């Protein structure tokens, strides 16, 4: 048979004979003749392995990356170090080629790794419950909103204007089905201006929200005041959903400590390469009182028949296979392998390493920001303090800067705009990120090219 079908012609003959058939076509007699595909699929013939790899190589060579296009882009996808230990361990085929742990007795490896992952995410988020992963940052935000609306039985949710524009877009897409009303809260000076929602300022009575959603640092890199957001949430008996940057959590107080009820985030920075945007990792944590509304899988520790510690997916009655149309979420397959990578990476970093990583990002960012803003005509988009990312106004539009900087060997950043206080994914400003991988020499070179191309 084909490439990965082991059967010989003799195997097929014998097996067909065993079941009383004489040809493979007879296997498909249950398919009405009119529906059978005559002439086969219109696809090229199968290729030998080296030819496939050569074709994939050809495609890969058409992309620019790495030392040929040094990365100063962020926007939720960061060029962090993925150490050999994380790479090697994550690619262990026992993790890679297992299914969801439905049979816990032969899935303790994945289950324990997920338990350790949940433990680590709980600590960095400052909340007691973390699930076993969601698809990406945007899907975590969507699930957070669904949880809050179910908890508060109110359809309105306030979204900070500083959210990732693609999270906002994804939230809007799914709100078409759930009927949630998403209300934008504008930024002022780079941070969310909750006072815009005062009935007096809004000029009309406002509908009480089920939740406030705010990211800190926000898309422009600025710190948000989560304690203030908590007060606003309390005034409306709403939940506070905080988007967080797990790397910055090495330096910043955890959102759970500052009053967030739900913490969501993008886990790509821990152990996952840029990957053209996926597979990434949706981080999701919440308070204990919300655990029965938790989306996705949750691993719990228990014992086996001999009293030894063992792990199993638990509180399964929330999930789609049991609850069906009343489930808390439709998630089945999640991003387990990426969560395992995250667990390995966070263990490799450890207590001191996470802090050091955040510190190094912040140092590079400050160094680059100071040098860039010394260029005539280059200014910060907002003067709010930032940690690991910042937005610049430049004398020429951002798309032009990106194009010209590519010729100099840099991915200069990501174009960004502000529309009525709400961040957009296109515009004349440039969002720049600096990770721990960027050296002083690279930044100096970037800055001098930048100075040249914005003239």
């Amino acid at each position, binding site marked *: 048979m084909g490439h990965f079908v082991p*059967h010989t012609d003799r*195997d097929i003959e*014998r*097996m*067909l*004979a*065993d079941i009383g058939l004489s040809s493979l076509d007879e296997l*498909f007699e*249950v*398919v*009405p003749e009119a529906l059978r*595909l005559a002439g086969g*699929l219109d696809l*090229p013939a199968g290729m030998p392995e080296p030819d496939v*790899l050569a074709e994939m*190589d050809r*495609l*890969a060579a*058409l992309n*620019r*990356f790495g030392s040929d*296009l040094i990365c100063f882009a962020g926007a939720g996808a960061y060029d962090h*170090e993925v*150490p050999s230990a994380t790479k090697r*361990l994550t690619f262990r085929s026992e*993790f890679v*080629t297992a*299914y969801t*742990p*439905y049979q816990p*007795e032969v899935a*303790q490896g994945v289950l324990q790794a997920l338990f350790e992952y949940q*433990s680590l995410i709980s*600590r960095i988020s400052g909340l*007691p419950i973390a699930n076993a992963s969601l698809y990406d940052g945007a899907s975590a935000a969507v699930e957070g909103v669904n949880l809050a609306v179910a908890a508060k039985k109110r359809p309105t949710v306030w979204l900070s204007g500083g959210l990732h524009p693609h*999270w906002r877009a994804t939230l809007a*897409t799914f709100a078409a089905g759930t009927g949630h009303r998403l209300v934008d809260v504008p930024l002022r000076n780079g941070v969310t201006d909750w006072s815009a929602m005062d009935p007096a300022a809004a000029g009309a009575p406002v509908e009480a929200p089920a939740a406030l959603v705010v990211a800190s640092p926000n898309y422009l890199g600025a710190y948000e005041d989560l304690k203030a957001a908590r007060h606003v949430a309390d005034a409306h008996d709403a939940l506070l959903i905080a988007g967080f940057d797990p790397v910055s959590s090495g330096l910043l107080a955890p959102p759970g400590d500052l009053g967030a009820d739900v913490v969501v985030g993008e886990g790509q920075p821990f152990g996952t390469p*840029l*990957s053209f*945007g*996926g*597979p990434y990792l949706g981080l999701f944590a919440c308070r204990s009182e919300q655990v029965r509304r938790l989306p996705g899988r*949750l691993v719990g*520790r*228990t014992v086996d028949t001999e009293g030894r510690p*063992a792990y199993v997916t638990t509180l399964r009655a929330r999930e789609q296979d049991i609850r*069906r*149309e009343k*489930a808390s979420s439709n998630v*089945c*397959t*999640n991003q387990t392998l990426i969560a395992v990578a995250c667990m390995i990476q966070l263990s490799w970093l450890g*207590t001191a*390493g996470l*802090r*050091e990583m955040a510190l190094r990002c912040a140092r590079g960012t400050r160094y680059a920001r100071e040098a860039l803003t010394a260029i005539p005509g280059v200014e910060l988009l907002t003067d709010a*303090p930032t940690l690991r990312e910042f937005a610049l106004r430049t004398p020429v539009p951002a798309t032009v800067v990106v194009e010209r900087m590519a010729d100099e060997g840099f*991915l200069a950043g990501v174009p960004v705009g502000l529309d009525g206080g709400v961040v957009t994914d296109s515009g004349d400003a440039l969002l720049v990120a600096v990770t721990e991988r960027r*050296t*002083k020499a690279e930044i100096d070179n970037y800055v001098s090219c930048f100075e040249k191309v914005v003239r």
Partner: protein
Amino acid sequence: MSSVTPTAAAPGGRATSAPLLGRDHEPTIFEFSSEGRRSFSFRTTGLPEWTAEELVPAGYLRPEPVALTEVSERDLVAHVTRLTHRQYSVDLGAYPLGSCTMKYNPKLCDDAASLPGLAAVHPATPAALAQGWLELLWSLGDSLCEVTGMHACTLQPPAGAAGELTGLLLMRAWHESRGERRTKIIIPDSAHGTNPASVTLGGYQTVTVPSDERGLVDLEALRARLDSDVAGIMLTNPNTLGLFEEDIAAIAEAVHEVGGLLYYDGANLNAILGVTRPGDMGFDIVHMNLHKTFAVPHGGGGPGAGPVAVSERLAEFLPGPVPARGDDGTFAWRTPSRSIGRVHTWYGNALALARAYSYILANGGDGLRRVAEGAVLNANWLRHRLRGTYDLPYDRPNMHEFVASTTTLKKDRGMRALDVGKRLLEKGFHAPTVYFPLIVDEALMIEPTETESPETLGALADALIAIAGDEPGEGAAAPRTTPVGRVDEALAARVLLPTWDAVAAHDAS
């Protein structure tokens, strides 16, 4: 009996020699922690060494570093490696988990998706500098349209359930564009749980249609449920019993008649590759589970990829951006004119998409048809071998999987589907899917896939037949050769310990 009697040989897909290192439990990573120990190392940058206090405004700085673990790289590697020794996987042995298509995942796809020219590319790289990625995604979408008989495709949905919800939102947008607000979606009683869960999130009510004695959608019951409030129907074909819905043309006609759309749950696409296509059957929207049909490994529960392909009239509603090819052969991002919007932060699980593309290249059109032939041959052969030992509630030609049951064995000797699964673990195989679909009592849903050899299948059949002859009570004691014995699931739910901190607090109390 069968002329294929492979028990004498050592079947490649049977994992009885797995290296399970004793029966001690593996401590958590937190227990290996020792103050001051470290693994990390960072690049030499030459940057000024500003302190945290100089970098972060006072009110925001965390007073103490977040406590993680402090382990050496050697201990971390040993811990994680030992965890892998406590894990079953396709690379270890056969995994006949029904509905999950646990086929062997060719290693070449791992290498293809690891190429730095794919894995190290930032998603915001301008299209002009990422032509390889756009061409790859465009070509994959094109191939998937050919396989499904559809017109256009989005690669954004990161899993099957996300594809379902995307499809339902496409239905909603389509009906709304025609000024209609329909409220109901029909699904069969044999449907996977993600279907009704997605229906709710799509803002629709679920209406269930029963299966008839053949195990197929009851056409009369379906007709009775169809009216102008029905937005559409979700089906998988072959269905979750592994049976081909022979009346699909009549179903499509009846649903289209009332203005509804047909959604194809592609979880079972492996059975029909190159044989028949959802588009030819009358479906309007199709999701695929690339992590089933196209050999993207499951990663212990993900990541997968759940692209959605649609017929021409729905193409302009697809999530954007989608890769498009210009007349000059270059590729650009394009957002369809009436797009429902994004369903993923970026473009979907891109590296999983690259794996699937390399799998399609390796197989080609002819190879994909052979995949279906092998899958259907293996499943039918296995059903024949189990006849007379297990109940076969729908004993008719099946496609890539079939559902057996222990109803009689339970009545006679107390043997449950769960017990059979646990006993199979002892015999070096993964268990089948148990208790799904819900319409079969004591269900064992078995999907051998095309990549298992006749020898492995024979050994699997022998193991299942031997288990049926077990002494009463043996099943309840299983599994005894696995890293842990049966796990106390009730305790896990009663005393919730989802983190190491919760364990520590519980132990202290």
